[in-house]
C-alpha cells in the first residue's frame, strides 16, 4: 500500500500533521469498510452525550492508537499493522 505516498499524504501541505490529506479515522475509512469497527459511524461530539475525545476510535491517535504501523511492519505477525 505504501508504495504511493500521495495516496495518503499531500506533498503541497495540508492542515493535518504529517501532511496527511485527511486524518484518521476518515482517512482510513475511505479505504476500509469491513464488517466491524472499520465501518462504524464515528460521530464525535453529539447532543446525545458522546464526545470526540472519549474513545480510542476518534480520540488520541484514532485508528493509529491500535494500528500504529501504517507504513508496514517487519514483524511476522504484522499483518494488522499493530506490531
Amino acid at each position: 500500500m505504501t508504495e504511493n505516498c500521495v495516496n495518503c499524504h499531500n506533498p503541497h501541505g495540508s492542515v493535518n500533521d504529517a501532511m496527511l490529506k485527511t486524518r484518521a479515522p476518515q482517512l482510513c475509512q475511505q479505504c476500509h469498510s469491513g464488517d466491524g469497527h472499520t465501518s462504524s459511524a464515528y460521530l464525535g461530539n453529539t447532543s446525545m452525550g458522546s464526545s470526540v475525545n472519549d474513545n480510542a476510535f476518534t480520540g488520541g491517535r484514532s485508528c493509529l492508537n491500535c494500528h500504529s504501523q501504517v507504513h508496514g511492519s517487519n514483524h511476522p505477525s504484522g499483518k494488522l499493522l499493530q506490531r
Partner: protein
Amino acid sequence: MNTKINLITLALLSSCSFGVLAQGYGLANAKTDSVKFDAWKCKRCVVETGTTGSISAGIAYNSEDDIYSANAFNSSNEVTGKVDADIRYRGEKGYQANVNAHNLGMDNGRMDIDVGKQGVYNINVNYRTFAHYESNSALSPYQQIGSDYLTLPDNWVTAGSSPDMTMLNSSLNPLELSLNRDRYGMGVEYQTESLLTTYVNFQREDKTGTKTTSGSIYNQSMMLAEPVDYTTDILNAGIKLKGDNWFTSLNYTGSVFKNDNSQLGFDSAFNPTFGAQTSGYMSLDPDNEAHTVSLLGQYNLAKTNLSGRLLIGQMTQDQSLTSIGYGYDLPAESIDAKVDITGMTLKATTRLNREWRVSGSYDYNDRDNKTQIEQWTQISINDVTGEAEYNTPYDLTTQRAKLSADYRISQGIKLDAGYDFERDERSYQDRETTDENNLWARVRVNSFDKWNMWFKGSFSQRDGSEYQASETSSTEQNALLRRYYLADRDRSQIEARFSHTPLTDLTVDFGARYSLDDYTDTEIGLTESTDTYYDVNVHYAVNADVSLNAFYNHQTIESEQSGSSSFSVANWQADIEDTIDYIGAGISYRNLMDSRLKLGLDYTYSDSDSTTQVSQGVTGDYGDYFAKVHNLNLYGEYQATDNMSVRVDYQMENYLDNDASNDISADTIWNVVSFGNVDHDYTAHMVMLSMTYRL
C-alpha cells in the same frame, strides 16, 4: 494541526528520496550539473585573483519554553550562535576555492566548501542540518525513553482500564518528541578536454530523536516514544559526455538505510487479555538498500529535440524479522524482499513552423516484486489467535503517453493543448487495471498593455477493469467500497492567472484555481472532493529606497465520504472542510542615515482550520481543530565602516493550536494510556545580534 509545512515537507521529501533518487534525480546530481556548465562557460573568462566575500557571526537569545518555537527560530537553545560566510578565492591558472555557510551552528545550518581548478576538477565537502520539534511536554509513565525497550516503574500496578491505574498520575514525566538530521557529504568532479566529465558524490545522513508511536495489545494501547537512530548513505557516480548537439550520461545511485534499533519492546500497562501478554514487541523500519543505474541521452536537431532515459534498479530488504516474543516457527529468517525496477522515458519535441510546436512522450515504469510468498502465523494480539496470513508482493506497472501542441495564434496570443493517457496495472489489488484519459488546454494572452494572463482548463476521466472489492483483502470488505486511488473518477480543473502593472513601480498578481473530483461509481468511500484556491500579491516600490509588499492566499478543501455500519448500503456520511488563510505584508527601507541604515519589517498570519461532521440520523462534529500563527520579523542593518556592518533581528511568534480529539489527559480514554494534551499556546521572542565583515 499544522501550518508550518516546510519542515515536514523536507522530512517527507527526504523520506521519499528513496523513490526520488531511485530515478536518478538526486539533489547531488542536479548540483553537479550546474557546477559543470558554469565552469565550461567561464573557461576563457579573465578573472582577477585574490579573495573576496564576507563573513558574519551572530548570537541569539530565545525566550521560550515550548520547544515548538524552535521550528520558527531554528534553535531550541536559549542562547545560540551562528556563522555565515561567502568567501571566494581565485588563484592563478584557474585555481579556485569557495566557502559558503549559512546559519552554521543553528538547526538549519549548512556549509559548502569547494576547491578546484576551473574547468578541470572540483572537490566539494558539505554539511547540513535540519531539525523538527513536536513537543517537550508529552507525558509518559515509561522509562528508558530513547532505548529499544520501554519499561514501567517497578511499582507499577496494571489494571483493566487507564483510570484504574493507581500509579499512572504519579509516574508521568515529560518527554521530548523531536527529530534531528545531520548530513555530511563529499564529491569529486573531473573534466577532460574531450568534454567528458566524471563525478562521484557520497552523502551520509544521521537522523536521531524520538517520534510518537503506539504499542497495542488487542484493544488496549499505550502511546510510546519510538527511538529514531537512522543512518542513510547515498553514493552516486557517473560519466557525462557532451558534444555540440548531444549529451549523454550514465549514472549510478545506491542508497543504504540502516536503523540502529530493529524493534521496540514495551511493558503492557494493562492487565493481560488475549494471549496473556504482559509485554509487546513491535518492529521498526528495517534496514534496506536500493541501487539504480540510468542512462540518459539527448539529441538536438535544428528544429527537433529528442531525449530518453533508461533505468534499472533493485530494492532489497533482508533484515531479520522481529521474532522476540513470537512463539511460532518462522518459514524464513527474513522476508528477503526483492523488488526490481525498470523505467524508460522517450520524449520528442519539434517546431513545425513559426506557429506550431508539437511534443510527445512515453513513460514506462515497472515495479516487479520478486519476494517469496510465505505463510505467517499471526500471534494473539487479537482474538483470531494463530490465524495464518500470507504476504502479498504487490507489482505495479505504469505507462504514460503524452501529446501536446503549442500554437501561436498571433503576436500576443498563444494556445497550447494536450492529451495525456495513463494506464496502471497492479497485482493483489481490488482492480487490476485503471486507465486515465486527460485533455487540457491553455491560452496565454500578452497582447494587452500592462496585463499578462493565462487560462487553463482540463478534464480527465479514470476507469478500468472490473472492480472486485475484497478480491485480495484478507478480510471481507463491503462490496460497494471503491478505494479512491482505484475508483472511477471524473476530474475537472480550471485555473487562471493575471499579472497587472498599472504603474512601473506597482505590480499586482492574482490567480485562482478550482478542481472537482467526482467518484462516479462510489457508494462507500470517498465520493467527492473539491479544492478552491486563490491568491493576490502586490509589490510597490514607493521610491528608490522604500518598497512595500503584501499577499493573501486562501484554500478550501472539501471532501465527502459515505460508509455503511450495516455492511450493506451507505447509512452514514462524513463531510470535511479544511481552510487555510495566509496573509502577510512587509516593508523595507534602505539608505537611511547617509545610506548606512537599512530597516525592514515583515508580518504574516496563518490560520488553518478543519471541521469534520459525521451524520447517521444525528449529526456530530469533531470539535475545534485549528492552528493560528502570527509571525513578526523586524530587522535593522547598519553599515558602521566600509567593511563592517552590524545587524539586529527581532522575531516574534504567537502560536495557538487545538485538536479537540486530543484534549485529553493520560487516562481520559479507558483503553489508552496517552501522552496527554500536546497542543501549543505561546508567544515566543528571539533577538539576534550579528556582525558582518567584508573581506
